[in-house]
């Protein structure tokens, strides 16, 4: 049942991503509506899939890479819907839906076995720590999309290519604003995720910080986003530099999420 729901959600996300990419090349209000329809359908099925798994396994469905990627995609979708209410930008989906689909796709190819939790992980901290981390990451994922849109629009304006996608992208100020707002929302979430992680580590393993690779890479991402906010407030770095840092930050986060697991031995490793 959970598998069926998951596959259906994946299919709808795929359809939505395809429609969103087609939108890059041709403007169509119908396509935008279709993209949202597929995305909502996928999201509903996805929510059902996650809930089903949660109820049937009686543990939070974030204990394997499969579950974690899927939950990550769910969070990005959630943030995308929230931000779409604030910014009515049809083409934004073209820069977010593919990310969501790829997260789901990577989730779908990973082993789906249910891993019983080790005693160290059986704690309320697990829910709090991971929820904060994923929501923060999701905000950064959408900020990544905004950053890419910013770079495209800035390049168009500078080189005076004023047709095609230029017409459909919003003003660079809107994109910059969106990028900054998302980072401002993601940053405290990431900060709290790191703090709760430290507290939890103290209670589970007896020390706050162990220089675990996941911890280190998260810290790097945290520093990048801290830099974005800091230099914006102090020196007014905005626009292109902020967009590039936002893109870099998300790439580091992606590495933290996927790369660290494969290349390093870490306490955060999924069994």
């Amino acid at each position, binding site marked *: 049942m959970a598998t069926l729901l998951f596959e259906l959600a994946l299919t709808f996300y795929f359809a939505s991503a395809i429609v969103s990419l087609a939108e890059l090349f041709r403007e169509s209000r119908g396509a935008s509506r279709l993209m949202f329809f597929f995305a909502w359908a996928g999201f509903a099925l996805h929510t059902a899939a996650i809930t089903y798994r949660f109820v049937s396994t009686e543990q939070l469905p974030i204990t394997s890479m499969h579950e974690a990627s899927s939950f990550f995609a769910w969070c990005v979708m959630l943030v995308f819907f929230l931000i779409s209410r604030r910014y009515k930008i049809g083409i934004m989906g073209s820069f977010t839906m593919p990310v969501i689909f790829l997260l789901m796709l990577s989730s779908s190819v990973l082993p789906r076995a249910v891993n019983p939790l080790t005693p160290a992980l059986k704690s309320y901290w697990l829910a709090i720590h991971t929820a904060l981390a994923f929501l923060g990451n999701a905000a950064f994922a959408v900020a990544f999309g905004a950053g890419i849109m910013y770079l495209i629009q800035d390049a168009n*304006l500078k080189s005076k290519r004023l047709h095609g996608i230029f017409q459909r992208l919003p003003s660079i100020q809107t994109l910059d604003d969106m990028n900054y707002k998302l980072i401002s929302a993601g940053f405290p979430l990431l900060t709290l995720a790191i703090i709760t992680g430290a507290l939890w580590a103290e209670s589970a393993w007896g020390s706050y910080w162990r220089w675990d690779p996941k911890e280190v890479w998260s810290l790097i991402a945290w520093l990048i986003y801290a830099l974005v906010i800091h230099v914006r407030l102090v020196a007014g770095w905005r626009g292109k530099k902020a967009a590039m840092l936002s893109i870099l930050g998300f790439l580091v986060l992606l590495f933290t999420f996927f790369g660290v697991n494969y290349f390093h031995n870490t306490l955060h490793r999924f069994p």
Partner: protein
Amino acid sequence: MKIIVIGVNHKTANVEVRERLAFNGEKLSEGIAGLRSLEGVNEVAVLSTCNRVELYACVDDTDAAVGRIKKFLSDFHSLEPESFEHSLYALSGTDAVRHILRVASSLDSMVLGEPQILGQLKDAFSFALKEKSSGILLNRLLKKAISTAKRTRTETKIAENAVSISFAAVELAKKIFNDLSGMSCMLLGAGEMAELAARHLVSSGIKEVMVANRTYETGCRLAEEFCGRPVKFEDFKTEMLFADIVICSTGAPTYVLNKDDMHAVMKHRKQKPVFIIDISVPRNIDPEINKLENVYLYDVDDLQEVVNTNMMERQKEADKASCIVEEEVGRFMKWISSLKAVPVILSLREKAEDIKNEEFIRLKNRLKNVSDEDMQAIEYMATAIINKMIHAPMVALKDDCEDRQELIALIKKLYGINGDNDDEE
């Protein structure tokens, strides 16, 4: 009855001829009254703008009416016929309908897709309604023209994208700033084009206008016009800190702003984006400035390029709009041709009713012992029979077909209907 168009436009006549033929102010109602009094002219509407003077009319005979209207024009405007005749075009039937629909959709305008013409046509229409100079045909046609224009506007992009430099500047500004209402703009020099662009910006809701002109007094005057703030020209670099949009047209022979100046400005502005429009020739702003982050510099050629591509876009869209116009012309002509069947349909029904009534009365006289109820039933049956008999020919007449004219003649012959209210085509 035929629909005709007689007129001149910017393509056929120069401004001198157009202004002489124009129906301005009081001349308009006088002109309409004069045209209506012409023999064989049944419905009239007049469209008179700076780019065209067109008379729309429904007439009995095209050639005769065109001759009379020409004569009227030369009398009314006291012009020699030779002075305008060669610029005059006269269209009738489908061509006239097509022309009116194209005019309304701004496909015949000097600037393709410009929006004013539709408003002017609406005015012409409501004036004709007020003067009661238009009738069924013209009213329907002008309504059709207005709805077609709206259709082309929503279904194609003919009216999208700026086709003047000042509008192009405003459109670009909207791709840099999400909301112009909080923005400030600085006019560097008080050129005409800069003033025009500023006017568009103000109507898009810009908050503040600063004017820095070499002659301070001229600057003051212009600033006053925009409820803005005059700035001493020597101080413009410090005042630029507050300007999100700068429109430059100083007429100076060299650059008045170089990269280092701008770099300092940006630092103080905390890198808030700036849109600079340099419409002066020779250029007044160092093009290198465009390489600075968050600074977007456009010169007059860049904007012209935008306008040119937009024009080309519109041209492409005009083809689509023409298809829509053709479709609507077809629909209108169908309606016109269906009108021709109306008299026959009426006569046919009348004839059938007459026969029924006649026979019914005869029957009534013969049958004495029939109750009212039964009589009613008999009448009902008679009505049903004639209705069914004439149903098929009625449908055939209402239906669209190529040979409607022949069909009408045939039905007249078959049912022995006289051609009293016949309309000669």
